[in-house]
């Protein structure tokens, strides 16, 4: 596959940035620095990055409760993301969304989503906007294997198909819906074949191989841009951490978890580009160092940022509404 050098560097940098972000968030969470819960994307980097490599800020994505990786792949600022996880005023959502609702519409990132299956209909709407306004923008809907069983996902795939919307459905099958194995919750031998029910292409992809994801997503996104309708990609990968950080993960063995790392998407990328002489070890190491600095700076930024004043609770509910009716009565 012929991927321009600059894009190869970008792919590595984004995957490394996601990994570094998530590993640091895991530590910060364990240290009690982050409120709420966090659902970490480490291990699945190749999917978000391989897909978003084909998107611009004018294209849209919808995401899941495991949304940090999608944000970073879509270009959301990691300082503002980290500050959001801390609940700080400088957060990308001013501290009102947190990990599960992290979003940046200026980057076309229509939100992580605390509701499993919340995003697919919204992706259809973004696709409908592109179709109605006659642009060639696309919407990518990331969803998990758990969300594959939600009615909204099926309704959205059907809607996108009958209206030929420029939407790409990317199922991130990380093998477990919380603790429930996908082989239990899914009646079919794969999720990709469900595309047949909606008369769209369905493709099973190795989600630990960024080149495979890049190629499949490129084809699906190009098809969407040509107004030829939606595609379903099922990308299989592993999530290194639990469903949420701190999850005891009693539903899988230590051996199973250890085996995941043998197909680590970042290591696989390194091996491929080094063995083929596409990038040098020095270049990759330099990216690793710059990523570490970026995360250090993000943490520093988040920790030194102020919390929002309590009254900030009362803003941004509506564009316009009588302020006194948003406040407490007494």
């Amino acid at each position, binding site marked *: 596959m012929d991927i321009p050098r600059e894009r190869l560097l970008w792919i590595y940098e984004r995957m490394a940035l996601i990994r570094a972000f998530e590993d640091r968030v895991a530590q910060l969470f364990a240290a009690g620095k982050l409120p709420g819960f966090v659902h970490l994307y480490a291990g699945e980097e190749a999917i978000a990055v391989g897909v978003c490599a084909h998107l611009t800020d004018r294209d849209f994505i919808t995401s899941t409760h495991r949304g940090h990786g999608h944000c970073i792949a879509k270009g959301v600022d990691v300082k503002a993301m980290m500050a959001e996880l801390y609940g700080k005023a400088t957060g990308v959502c001013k501290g*009102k*969304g947190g990990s599960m609702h992290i979003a940046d519409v200026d980057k076309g990132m229509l939100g992580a989503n605390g509701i499993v299956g919340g995003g697919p*209909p919204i992706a*259809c709407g973004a696709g409908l906007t592109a179709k109605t306004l006659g642009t060639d923008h696309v919407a990518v809907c990331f969803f998990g294997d758990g969300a594959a069983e939600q009615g909204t996902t099926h*309704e959205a795939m059907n809607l996108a198909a009958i209206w030929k919307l420029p939407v790409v459905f990317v199922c991130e099958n990380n093998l477990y819906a919380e603790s429930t194995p996908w082989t239990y919750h899914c009646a079919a031998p794969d999720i990709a074949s469900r595309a047949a029910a909606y008369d769209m292409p369905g493709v099973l992809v190795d989600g630990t191989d960024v080149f495979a994801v890049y190629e499949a997503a490129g084809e699906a996104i190009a098809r969407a841009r040509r107004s030829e309708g939606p595609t379903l990609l099922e990308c299989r990968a592993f999530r290194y951490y639990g469903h949420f950080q701190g999850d005891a993960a009693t539903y899988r063995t230590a051996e199973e978890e250890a085996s995941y790392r043998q197909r680590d998407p970042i290591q696989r990328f390194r091996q491929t580009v080094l063995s083929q002489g596409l990038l040098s070890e020095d270049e990759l190491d330099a990216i690793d160092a710059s990523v570490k600095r970026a995360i250090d700076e993000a943490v520093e930024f988040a920790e030194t940022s102020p919390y929002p004043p309590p009254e900030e609770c009362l803003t941004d509910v509506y564009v316009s509404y009588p302020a006194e009716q948003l406040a407490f009565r007494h």
Partner: protein
Amino acid sequence: MVVATRVLSYRQAINEALRLEMRRDPTVILMGEDVAGGATVEHIEQEGAWGGPLGVTKSLVSEFGRQRVLDTPISEAGFIGAAVGAAVTGLRPVAELMFVDFFGVCMDQIFNQGAKLRYMFGGKAKVPMVIRTMIGAGFGAAGQHSGCHYSVFAHMPGLKAVAPATPYDAKGLLIAAIRDDDPVMFFEHKMLYDVTGEVPEGDYIVPLGKADIKRQGSDVTIVAISRMVHVALQAAERLAVEGIDAEVVDLRTLSPLDEDTVLSSLAKTRRMVVVDEDNPRCSVAADIAALAVDKGFDYLDAPVKLVTAPHTPVPFSPPLEQFYIPSPERVIAAVREIV
């Protein structure tokens, strides 16, 4: 400037509001089950497509085409959610939830997505969408096609809720709702579609959040919503015969609430009855009563009385349904208790 008016039905007034806004703004689209009608039937756009089961959106597809008047599958979660996604990315969708009772199958998209996105995103997004939906008993449609349920939506931060009672208000409020940058639930009472009234030509706005005094009076304030405004007016005429002068306040918008108009009327009359076809627990009616007690306590010379539906689903059998719907007689009885 003199604006010509003519008599239109509530149905025609809503249709005209949609037509004018679609002409004015190419980003306004309609979507819902059968809003065009007869998809795939050749030439039906010009020859009598349904325009919804009660014909409210009739003939809009012939002017604006199927790209802007979108028949949807019976997938409320899918298309209401698509309306949210379209609104957040640059359109002004008007989605039709055929009967409000169907909110059960799409509520996540309304209240977890549409209503909360702006807040969760720290104010970076706006969701300028309207969900038009049919409410109300009186049609013999029974338990799953007859509720009002607007109290559920008025309760939810992030949503606005509008319930017009007259053709004039229906047109002006719908235009305001479409131009509003927040998600608006627009409740149309199915028993009002054939009610007629003077409606100006051209576009005009009835601002959201403003109640309207439909009848001036001095002895008691009757606050009413949607079809109950007409019930309250009938009661007021009959009370006038016995020398009781009732003021009828049409709430028009349920969220935000026009507290000033309600409280000013109460300050004048010192007595209040609230008439609401929705179920009584945790309702808009109960909220108005709480407002009167909280901010209007010093005005009150008598208890606030609520005339509402019972705490039951809507029954089918005609005498049961008539029992369910608040009547002028029940309003009169409530007024007599406190005047």
